[in-house]
């Protein structure tokens, strides 16, 4: 299991389109993927789940990966967050 913290850097926050990209990336991997914000932990493969967090710019999320390809998923996901969901 890998746990890592990421920050939301883009202005619009984790809105519908990035949420959709996040679940699409996660769906390509076998590993389980969870996102946690302010004590609320949701399944990162569910778009409704990811959107429930309503993560705003500047907020910190914990990403949790668990499964055979967790390392690869973690790298791709972390990079996607760091790039500001390609909205920067």
């Amino acid at each position, binding site marked *: 299991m890998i746990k890592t913290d990421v920050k939301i850097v883009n202005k619009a926050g984790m809105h519908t389109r990035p949420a959709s990209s996040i679940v699409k990336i996660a769906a390509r991997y076998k590993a389980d993927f969870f996102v946690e914000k302010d004590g609320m932990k949701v399944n990162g493969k569910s778009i409704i789940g990811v*959107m*429930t967090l*309503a993560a705003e710019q500047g907020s910190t999320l914990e990403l949790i990966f668990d499964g055979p390809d967790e390392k690869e998923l973690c790298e791709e996901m972390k990079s996607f967050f760091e790039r500001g969901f390609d909205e920067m």
Partner: protein
Amino acid sequence: MPDSLKDIKEIKKEFITVDFFYNECRDRFKLTKITSKKIKPGLNLTEKNLHRPGLALAGFVDLFAFNRIQIFGNTENNYLKKLSAKEKTNTLTRYFSFAVPLVIFTDNNKPTSEVLKLADEKDVPVFTTPVHTTRLVSLLSDFLDDQFSVQAAIHSSFVDVYGVGLLFCGKSGIGKSEITLDLIERGHRLVADDVVIVSKKAENVLMGSGTSLVKHFMEIRGLGIIDIGRIFGIRAIRYQKRVEVIVELETWDSSKSYERTGLDTHLINILGVEIEKINLPISPGKNITVIAEVIALNYLCKHYGYNAAKVFEKKLTNRIRQNKNGSPNAVESKFKRNTEYFEHDFE
């Protein structure tokens, strides 16, 4: 333990702000704030219990639960009225030297000017309500119990099927949302899809609801986001429901043994509440929606005292006993067909 229930994270509020309390309860309990100062930002309520400060006013402050909501009923108010001016000042000064979060005067009682002056000095908001003390205590306890209850977000779909709360769990993509949609189409009611917030109510009750953001929206793969309330109307949705049966959907695993008789009820512990759980293997051609309806109806049967598995077991045991005793018609009755012909009825 199913994956979606294995590592649920409990959320528990450490406090609610007094400001939040007032906003939520103003209309609910007919509260009016009568202190002139604004509620201090950062003034928190950390206790879900209430306190009637009779003894503290009388001078016994050893175990004074000052950090709870303070309820002044007729007793407290009349006691204060009875005191001489000097006694009253002493009593109230001592009382307000504790960090009281808020005070409520019930039954239309009005606090005296001394109370209001001291409360304002110490930044303690004082409220009045026409509600009777015992009634208010019971209503407030309910509200605070709910606010401070243990909660958790579960990745699942939650539907009211014939009045029974069925919570569908299972891996991403197994078809929880599709079954939910099918059930809604057949006239059942959606509570929440994908993210269900469960909270413990009373000792043995688990309540489930959606989040205020997502309520009654759901995602269908290949289609996107849809609004169930809009499409199917008011009859298709509800806000909250008691969780009664957990249905765990999984792909058929031939190495696993599934319940065949229904004699054993499997229980699972969620937030300290035991809930019945059914493992439902999915394979092509299986109508999970109908099975879900039958799960709900069978649950109701059991609730009303009829357990099909037990009734059948009893019949079987009787027949075995008959066969063993070699009763006269044992051979004939052994494989007796269930036929009952009416006269000339050969249909």
